[in-house]
């Protein structure tokens, strides 16, 4: 067995940045990863604009619907509604690491790139106030935000959102807005003084998308294909950083490994994994371990390794609300086909309850996720619904509202040992209390009252259910105080000597925004601090 400084478990957004910081500092890293990949759908998508492809490609049913029709999900809007067949592999086979819950949509990813392989790419650095519960501040994390921003390529900035979302020196110019977003943004700029006075701020979304060539990727070709393929690799995915790492001498990627548990002696950490190709058990050894298997995956590994079956740990996930809106000011005006598929605009607003909380949302135009999915949710007859939706669609935008999440005794996960030799089951109980639900409704009402002033008419409010937006977090929170199932200021799990966490597990609470970018900065910090330790291997 060769001497390895650090084992990293997982290949998602946290894993690759922890590994990049370690390898960049000259440390040797072995990455253990299950590594599911796309079944080959993405490579079938022609390099063409979405509309041209739809009218011309006779093979489109393969990647639009999937060979097993996995792109047709019957029933109500729920978790993964935006996942297309080329992205469906990010959800692991639920029998491998089963999650049991009555009301929480919990899923694991065993994909190469983890859930990051289908990330919506919206970049939201946490603010000073939002980092404080972790015992961190912006000055501490800023160099890591900058390092990650440079690695992934972030476009945007130079607008009213800069005061909330710290810009990084490497940021690229914003992507071009589509017609709907441009109209909404122009309307905002005309009414800017009154709206900002009311605590409402709007700007082009910061996106992990290269608006010009960056580290051999990009620029964004505006094919509206981000849900289906990766033209020019303009949208950052963890796999791109993983490929860079694989070219480094100090890095080794071992795929098809299903990590079961770890154990420590005085100087070393041993990681037990199953090789899913050979069906053999393996042991890997290093000076330290970084767990970045995704919050639910990491919870499973930690609880199993420490023998804490039945012990409840917190679980969080930003509740989410969708509100389709009609940009009525655009009706009858030209609609440009050239567009990207991701969030066009981001909203940050001060909550009306005087708490200083920020309410955050993003706006996308609905087109490339196919019309039948909308028709299915309509309560009108299909034929009329189709005619109406086709007419509405050029002017249809979706407002996606994130809500904050804080731990309560009724949001918990625990591991149950399987006595029959099968997989341990991770149980999740999640129940928001009435005060949280009231706050969410108030935030939605506040935003929906503003949008008519920007030419948007909200006509529906949809709740995809708890757990649906996959922002799982909070199981082993970092911060001052906390027990041994929490992390210290370096991200080390207190119950261990050399095990560090670099995924959503460490966030003691979630502000009303996506956590991925901050999670990556935390992982970069974990890797940087760990690399400075003198004795590893």
């Amino acid at each position, binding site marked *: 067995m060769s001497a390895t400084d650090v084992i990293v478990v997982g290949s998602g957004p946290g894993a690759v940045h922890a590994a990049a910081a370690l390898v960049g500092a000259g440390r040797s890293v072995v990455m253990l990863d299950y590594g599911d990949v796309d079944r080959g759908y993405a490579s079938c998508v022609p390099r063409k604009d979405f509309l041209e492809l739809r009218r011309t490609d006779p093979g489109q049913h393969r990647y639009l619907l999937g060979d097993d*029709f996995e792109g*047709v999900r019957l029933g109500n809007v729920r978790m993964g509604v935006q996942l297309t067949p080329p992205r469906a592999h990010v959800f692991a086979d639920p029998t491998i690491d089963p999650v049991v819950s009555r009301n929480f949509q919990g899923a694991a990813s065993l994909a190469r790139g983890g859930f990051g392989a289908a990330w919506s790419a919206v970049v939201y650095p946490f603010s000073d106030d939002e980092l404080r519960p972790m015992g961190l501040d912006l000055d501490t994390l800023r160099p890591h935000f900058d390092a990650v921003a440079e690695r992934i390529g972030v476009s945007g900035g130079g607008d009213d959102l800069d005061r909330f979302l710290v810009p990084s020196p490497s940021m690229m110019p914003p992507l071009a807005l589509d017609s709907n977003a441009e109209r909404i943004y122009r309307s905002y700029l005309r009414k800017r003084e009154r709206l900002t006075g009311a605590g409402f701020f709007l700007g082009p979304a910061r996106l992990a998308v290269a608006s010009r060539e960056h580290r051999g990727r990009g620029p964004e070709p505006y094919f509206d294909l981000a849900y289906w393929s990766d033209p020019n690799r303009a949208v950052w995915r963890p796999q791109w950083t993983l490929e860079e790492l694989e070219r480094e001498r100090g890095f080794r990627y071992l795929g098809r490994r299903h990590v079961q548990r770890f154990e420590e002696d005085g100087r070393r950490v041993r990681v037990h994994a199953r090789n899913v190709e050979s069906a053999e058990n393996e042991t890997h050894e290093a000076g330290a371990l970084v767990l970045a298997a995704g919050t639910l995956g990491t919870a499973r590994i930690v609880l199993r390794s420490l023998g804490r079956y039945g012990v409840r740990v917190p679980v969080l996930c930003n509740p989410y609300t969708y509100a389709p809106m009609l940009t009525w000011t655009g009706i009858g005006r030209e609609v440009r086909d050239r567009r990207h598929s991701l969030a066009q605009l981001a909203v940050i607003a001060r909550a009306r309850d005087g708490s200083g909380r920020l309410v955050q949302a993003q706006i996308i135009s609905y087109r490339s996720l196919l019309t039948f999915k909308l028709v299915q949710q309509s309560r009108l*007859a299909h*034929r009329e619904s189709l005619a109406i939706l*086709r007419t509405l*669609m050029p002017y249809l935008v979706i407002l996606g509202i994130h809500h904050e999440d804080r731990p309560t005794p009724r949001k918990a996960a625990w591991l149950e040992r399987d006595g029959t030799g099968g997989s341990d089951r991770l149980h999740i109980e999640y129940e928001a209390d009435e005060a949280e639900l009231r706050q969410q409704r108030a935030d939605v009402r506040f935003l929906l009252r503003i949008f008519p002033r920007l030419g948007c008419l909200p006509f529906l409010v949809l709740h995809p259910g708890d757990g649906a937006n996959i922002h799982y977090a909070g199981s082993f929170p970092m911060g001052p105080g906390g027990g041994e199932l929490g992390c210290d200021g370096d991200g080390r799990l207190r119950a261990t000597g050399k095990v560090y966490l670099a995924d959503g597990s460490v966030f003691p609470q979630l502000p009303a925004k996506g956590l991925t970018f901050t999670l990556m900065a935390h992982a970069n910090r974990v890797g940087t601090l760990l690399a400075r330790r003198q004795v590893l291997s």
Partner: protein
Amino acid sequence: MTDLEDEARLLARYLVGRDPGGEVVERYTRGHARLLARPADSADEALVGFVRRHPATLGLLEAACGVLRPHGLLRRKLTVMAAVLEATPDFADEFLPRESGRMGFAATIALHSVRAALKLVLGLALYPVARRP
């Protein structure tokens, strides 16, 4: 021709007003086997049987189902056919966004809303009869 192939043609003609062709029919039967293989509620099966015997009632009954059984068997079948048609270049334009002027926009929304409402009223009257096993 099997019942399912007949059903595919009926649903496609209803959705896009044209015969779907063998490729779409074959894809629908595959999708049906993959997504709708589990036995359905007997009243749902009865309603589908009624529609097969009386194809002219499809629009009325699925309008009623939109309110009473939005994810019931008949509408699930229509969703599968809509997905198959949408992913076929010959029919893609029937599903792509359609730009219109303000008058055209208002007229389309109004016309189809009125039609949907009328179908719903008639469908609700027919619905209890059609679901009788």
